[in-house]
């Protein structure tokens, strides 16, 4: 509130002194974002733990397919660890694993949990997952939605319950056993021998299998919810925050912030005329998606939250749900995760998302150098990608199913001509002189990379020198790979 008030006032002369007075206050309510730094020793420990687990378990198991599953899971995780999908920092990683250890320590009856670990994934999807081998993953996108440690604890306890109940390995093993069974083989044989409609019958058999399996999956979710509460009963985390958590999940497919971005205002400049047609959608096939059982499960990230809430209320006699604000001690967690998500999107090349969320956060943190740099970098990267026809590797086509802010920036990127995109990008840099500056310190790597891209856009002869400077200043920099592959 205070921030927006100051912005409004700063336009009138009368308020000028007030702005000066509150400058220090302003800096405090702003947010000095520094990206989470990877702690290489934590990463190495985590990898070792995983390798050890794999080595020990692998000896115990039998069956070619089951062994294959173990191997694939291990490779998948190692690969993601090595390519930087997970954050091993002092902020998220430490906080979440502390909660995990607290829950484990309070429940000494459950053994074999020494090697469990939470990894924080740079994903915007509001979700968490259990891999079955002690690794549980918590997405940044879920962290940024939560309000307190109690909710974090419920999610962690829920994933830990999947591990305790052997849900993952158990269901994989069941599936493999079923595919190996006489029952299944006879069924397939009988379908093959049908005189008519083989493929149709086969398809509906597969659909039936997947429905049964998703039914079992939902049952397992309820079991994990229950055990999660049982585990938390031995801690001092607030149990009824589980209900708030489920209510948050229920609406998690909606964007976190309701602000509407006016791209025309954001991109307006004297050097060119913003064309309203850039934001126009040309009509495609206006045919509604047919009701399709195969699709139903994928429509919502978290189906039947209502049912899960009422089951917990009933089984554990929890006090009814009471909505409230983010706890003040938790605020830094959500703010940092909002920024870290933008940084993650930038690293993974989801440039449309960076522009969308960058502008949204600018409503709360105006004049934030990181946000300005992130938007500038994204505009420039989109320009270069479009120039060499790799745009669609980074930016999808517009789609009404996305939220409005994202849909509209995708429309603009799809509709705009390359030469106009260059004008928009240059104008954005000109409006934000800070991201053009070529002198930097260790603290503002994003600004340094933004200014490098600016020189590249301008075809400047200083480009090579800036590149060398960057590599010297940030030998472990986030954008080193991008810089090296950039021609």
């Amino acid at each position, binding site marked *: 509130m205070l921030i927006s008030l100051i912005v409004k006032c700063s336009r009138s002369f009368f308020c000028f002194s007030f702005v000066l007075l509150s400058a220090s206050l302003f800096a405090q309510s702003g947010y000095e974002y520094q990206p989470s730094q990877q702690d290489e020793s934590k990463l190495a420990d985590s990898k070792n733990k995983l390798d050890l687990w794999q080595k020990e378990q692998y000896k115990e198991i039998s069956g070619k397919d089951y062994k294959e599953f173990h191997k694939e*899971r291990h490779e998948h995780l190692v690969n993601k660890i090595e*390519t930087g*999908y997970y954050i091993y920092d002092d902020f998220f990683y430490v906080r979440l694993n502390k909660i995990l250890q607290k829950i484990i320590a309070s429940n000494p009856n459950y053994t074999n949990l020494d090697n469990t670990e939470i990894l924080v994934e740079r*994903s915007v*999807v509001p*979700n*968490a*997952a*259990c*891999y*079955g081998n002690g690794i549980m*993953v918590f997405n940044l996108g879920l962290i940024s939605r939560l309000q307190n440690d109690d909710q974090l604890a419920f*999610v962690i306890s*829920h*994933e830990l319950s999947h591990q305790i109940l052997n*849900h*993952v390995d158990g*269901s994989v093993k069941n599936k493999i056993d079923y595919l190996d069974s006489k029952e299944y083989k006879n069924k397939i044989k009988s379908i093959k021998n049908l*005189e*008519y*409609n*083989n*493929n*149709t019958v086969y398809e509906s058999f597969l659909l039936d299998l997947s429905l049964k399996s998703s039914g079992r*999956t939902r049952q*397992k*979710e309820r079991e*994990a919810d229950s055990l999660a509460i049982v585990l938390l009963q031995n801690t001092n985390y607030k149990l009824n925050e589980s209900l708030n958590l489920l209510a948050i999940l229920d609406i998690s497919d909606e964007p976190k912030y309701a602000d509407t971005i006016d791209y025309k205002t954001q991109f307006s400049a004297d050097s060119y005329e913003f064309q309203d*047609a850039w934001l126009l959608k*040309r*009509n*495609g*096939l*206006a*045919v*509604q*998606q*047919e009701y*399709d059982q195969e*699709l139903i499960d994928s429509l919502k*990230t*978290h189906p039947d939250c209502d049912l899960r809430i009422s089951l917990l209320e009933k089984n554990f006699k929890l006090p009814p749900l009471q909505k409230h604000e983010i706890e003040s001690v938790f605020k830094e967690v959500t703010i940092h995760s909002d920024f870290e998500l933008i940084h993650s999107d930038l690293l*993974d*090349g*989801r440039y449309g*998302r960076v522009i969308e969320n960058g502008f949204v956060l600018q409503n709360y943190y105006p004049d934030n150098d990181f946000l300005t740099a992130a938007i500038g970098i994204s505009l420039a990267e989109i320009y270069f990608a*479009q120039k060499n*026809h790799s*745009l*669609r*590797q*980074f*930016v*999808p*086509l517009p*789609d009404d199913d996305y939220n409005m802010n994202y849909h509209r920036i995708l429309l603009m990127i*799809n*509709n705009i*001509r*390359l030469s106009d995109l260059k004008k928009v990008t240059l104008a954005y840099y000109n409006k934000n002189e800070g991201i053009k500056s070529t002198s930097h310190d260790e603290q503002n790597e994003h600004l340094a990379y933004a200014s490098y891209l600016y020189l590249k856009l301008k075809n400047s002869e200083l480009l090579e020198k800036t590149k060398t400077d960057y590599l010297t200043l940030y030998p472990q920099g986030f954008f080193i790979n991008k810089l090296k592959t950039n021609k």
Partner: protein
Amino acid sequence: MAILFASMSGITAQSKSVSSVVKLNINNIQPIKKGDKITGYYVFYKADKVKGGDYSYKLIIYDENVEKVAKKRIIASSSLLLLEAQYNGELLCFKLYDKKEKKSKLIFYNDKAEKIYTKSYEVSKMERKMILMREQQGGSSSAPSLVPIEEKGFLDVTTVKNEKAGYQIKFYPNDKTQKGWKYASKKTSPLLEFATVMEANKNIIVCLVGAKKKMMSQNASYNVVTLDANTGKELYKIKASSPKYEESILNSYYDEGKKELTLFGNYFRKGSNVIKDNSLGIVITTVNAEGKKIGQKYNSWSKDIAKYLGPSKRGKISEIGFIFFHQFVRKADGTFYGIGESYRKTVSGAATAGKILALAAIAAGGTGSNNESSFQITVRDFYIFEFDQDKNITGVKTIEKSVSRVGLPKGAGYYGPQILAQIVKAQGGFDFSYLKTLNEGKTFAVFYQNYEKIKGEKNKSVCGVISHTDGEYLIDKIDLPTEATFTKVLPAQDGNVLFMEYYRKDKKLKMEFKKMNY
């Protein structure tokens, strides 16, 4: 908090892959059009044998982003072809042909992908021949026979049996309680008559109607017939000739505001043959709402056009050979552009591909045997003819590209330039793919595909776009991936194209949109 295992990979790659492509063949993915716009795609394949000797087919409908919208089951004989799909903003229409039953079938779906109604009818012998020819070419190089009319209905253009062959244009309204209409050639006509729809909107239908004595006759006359879209009644008819010249018609533009029709064509010396002989130039005719010619502009090759062809070609139009006009387009500012590709008959050296020759022979009315002619057609550069709002020629832009050669069936060497062009077109011998206006009509973009020959390098196949905005031309190209077993480029929404790559080894079909620069 689902148990995610095969979780999402890094980048939000907009490439999709369909891994179970057992029945998927790169050719059974086709676009659903709405005139020159791409509104979606469909996949069509034979799924099962059903009781009574029939088969079930699957029709999967996708939107313009290749998101699945609906899945349909169709029962028919063992050989059902899906010929075309069009969308008119309200209904989707699929045109199918049952080879065994010798029947065509139109299926109409509404905006909930529900079947509204179907129409079946017998197909004439001539039409069957043409359908089979198209099937063998595996594409749709000929003019569409299904034409959408925005929010109103569809036209189905077919060849029917009269005294000789004739045409029939049938209108199917979106609202099935309303009556359709039919416009057809006279049953007793002693001539062979054929029709193409050049324009169709909610008020007017503009057709090009040709007539000749025999199939391979090199003498034809052309008329433009306009119909009231509500009743199918003839509004006016225009003969393509003038007291001074013989004329042909290639394309049209209808100005809905002024209700004026602009016709583009070639003109010829009086008494000459518009199919066989060389034209004198390009004629642009303006017709008012009453069907009266209110203006004709003649642009001659030798004088008006030659002066724009640059010093090397000035006055030597014969060096270019002939120009085949694919399309004329009007930009938002009222200027017109004619998109042409040059071709000429040359003596062939080595033998060319047999399959193409056989097809060309069928196209020319032959038997399809491998009779090679000693002539071939060499296709060369793009020529874009620029006209101002008053239809005066103001420039010609030449866009050079690699030469491609097309073999000719035996005897075809003696055909006139217009028929030769039709043979080349039917074989997909031209590089032009399609044309689009973008950027609110301020840009037009010609999409093409060809082989680039670069000295000392392997030939590469490219997909390119030539665009024109604010008086400037821009050329953009992408190399087609070479590691794939098959590659195909389909048109897509706005400035995008859809790359499809099939990898035989992994049985994987990869689809990726690419936005072209324009």
